[in-house]
């Protein structure tokens, strides 16, 4: 059977993809009616199960070396909708399940409903939204239809925005509103682009659309407009420089577990769709100029985000600006990975590794900042002297996460940046290498700003020491980012599954 025919028929492991989406949706709906106390139990019980499903999907993709496909209701595209999991989807599913579970177990003391107390609104909202966000992420990673992906993106926004303003303070409400407005404008542009594509090719299925665009004797001008509109909309949601203004207040003011999930996963959801658009839907239209523009915006993000991170007074704002810089690295993938040369494959692996290692490292750092803020009652960087002696495990985890952001070995961040650097050298595009190295140096600067005074021997009044278990979660995430640096060749092979089919 041809690759297209294979992509339009359910294959043996395909039902797992449905489970990966349905499980958190069922949990979310049950939580809504069961109340905050039970919502916590449901969410925490489903997280290991969801992780198991994601791992089985990843194993299936790796074993078959081919994407898993499920055709909903047996209605084949273009009329029906397909769910597909390639290597990139599979690793993102596993990462999302791990980070959501870590954030969930970390959040237990923050959003608990003790037996003697009445149910409150915040715990119910948090546990329901966390599951909704997880379901939407899985939909984004598995969706094979551009309109279905639009709905998934909107669900992701609707779950993420209220998480920003759970405490209801005016500044968090303001941050949430700004975030919502940016996200809504982004998705309208995405929808307009999808409409143009449907008008030109009569389908929104990614595989059929790619075939239609490849087979067309002359590419319809509407295709270029659609690509531009959809990319612009998705960039606003990914907070790529210069559309990043909404991110720092939203991510820095949210409760720590929400910040972790927003920074580690939610911005990756829309980035994932930019990758789908340019590498899967219209690989033939990925011109050097268009890809160069994305790379240039990414470079701007790396430099601008890092310099602003150096100037922040609050720890959570510093970490939020660092997210803007690290998102920039993801976009260096576009000028380097478009093509069928071996070094293009390396750049692809580098970009995916950056997405994974940043997810773990940033989740760990936001949770560490959350523990610091709980113990001290503030997160002013100037007043963190000596925190390393009061909370050594938390600071150690923060430092390990920082190691990955800087791109020092051994860490996932090092592997990611090393693969990107190799691709710049082999592809003769050395100017991106200068940006990667410069960004690493600046990241070293802003991590040092926190870690160096924290190690100073000065007495610090800590209100309450965090529990070992929660410190352990933070450390485990940092170690996961570190372990990615030891990824075996088989893992890098998994990232390539499904990519070969898209390169003409």
């Amino acid at each position, binding site marked *: 059977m041809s690759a297209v025919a294979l992509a339009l028929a359910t294959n043996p492991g395909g039902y797992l993809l449905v489970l990966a989406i349905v499980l958190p949706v069922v949990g979310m709906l049950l939580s809504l009616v069961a109340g905050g106390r039970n919502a916590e139990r449901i969410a925490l019980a489903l997280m290991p199960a969801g992780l198991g499903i994601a791992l089985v999907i990843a194993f299936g993709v790796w074993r078959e070396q081919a994407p898993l496909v499920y055709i909903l209701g047996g209605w084949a595209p*273009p009329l029906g909708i397909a769910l597909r999991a390639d290597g990139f989807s599979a690793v993102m599913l596993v990462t999302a399940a791990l980070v959501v579970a870590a954030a969930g177990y970390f959040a237990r003391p923050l959003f608990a409903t003790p037996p003697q107390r009445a149910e409150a609104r915040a715990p119910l909202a948090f546990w329901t939204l966390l599951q909704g966000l997880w379901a939407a992420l899985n939909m984004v990673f598995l969706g094979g239809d551009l309109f279905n992906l*639009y709905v998934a993106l*909107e669900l992701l926004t609707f779950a993420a925005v209220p998480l920003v303003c759970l405490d209801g303070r005016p500044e968090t*409400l303001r941050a949430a509103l700004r975030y919502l*407005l940016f996200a809504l*404008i982004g998705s309208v542009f995405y*929808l*307009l682009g999808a409409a*143009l594509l*449907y008008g030109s090719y009569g389908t929104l299925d990614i595989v059929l659309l790619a075939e239609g665009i490849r087979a067309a004797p002359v590419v319809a001008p509407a295709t270029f407009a659609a690509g531009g509109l959809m990319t612009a909309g998705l960039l606003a949601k990914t907070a790529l420089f210069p559309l990043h203004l909404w991110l720092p207040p939203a991510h820095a003011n949210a409760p720590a577990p929400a910040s972790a999930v927003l920074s580690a996963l939610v911005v990756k959801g829309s980035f994932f769709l930019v990758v789908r658009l340019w590498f899967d839907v219209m690989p033939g239209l990925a011109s050097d100029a268009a890809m160069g523009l994305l790379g240039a915006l990414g470079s701007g993000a790396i430099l601008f985000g890092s310099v602003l991170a150096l100037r922040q007074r609050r720890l959570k704002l510093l970490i939020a600006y660092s997210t803007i810089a690290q998102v920039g690295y993801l976009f260096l993938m576009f000028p380097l990975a478009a093509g069928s040369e071996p070094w293009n494959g390396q750049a692809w692996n580098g970009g995916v590794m950056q997405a994974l290692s940043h997810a773990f490292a940033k989740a760990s750092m936001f949770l560490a900042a959350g523990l610091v803020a709980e113990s001290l009652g503030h997160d002013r960087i100037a007043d963190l002297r000596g925190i390393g002696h009061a909370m050594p495990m938390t600071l150690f985890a923060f430092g390990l996460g920082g190691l990955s952001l800087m791109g020092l070995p051994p860490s996932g961040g090092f592997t990611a940046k090393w693969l990107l650097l190799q691709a710049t050298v082999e592809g003769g595009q050395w100017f991106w290498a200068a940006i990667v190295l410069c960004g690493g140096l600046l990241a070293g600067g802003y991590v040092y700003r926190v870690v160096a005074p924290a190690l100073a021997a000065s007495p610090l009044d800590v209100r309450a020491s965090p529990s070992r278990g929660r410190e352990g979660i933070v450390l485990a995430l940092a170690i996961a980012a570190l372990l990615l640096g030891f990824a075996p060749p088989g893992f890098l092979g998994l990232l390539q599954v499904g990519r070969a089919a898209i390169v003409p």
Partner: protein
Amino acid sequence: MTAATLAGLTGAALVGLGVYGLLVLAHPLRKLLCFNLLGSGVFLMFGILARKGGAAGFAADPVPQALVITGIVVAFSATALAVALLLRLFETSGTVTLNPDEQRPE
């Protein structure tokens, strides 16, 4: 001028008005209204473009209609969420500006 062209141009004009308003107007409620205007324009254009593309031979293509209805539901929920946030912001701070420099109530 055919009815389809007229509808398409109306959609384009709505999109233009919406984008202009989003860029120029500062009040969040006005921005929200502009988002709805922009959305309506996109929905109108979705229907028209679909008639000219994949469904050119059919009397009616059900897919874009299903998509537009879903889109309207999504835009409606988005508006409801934004209005709820705006109301809560007004209750807690007495003002709805997004600009941190003008946070004090008049």
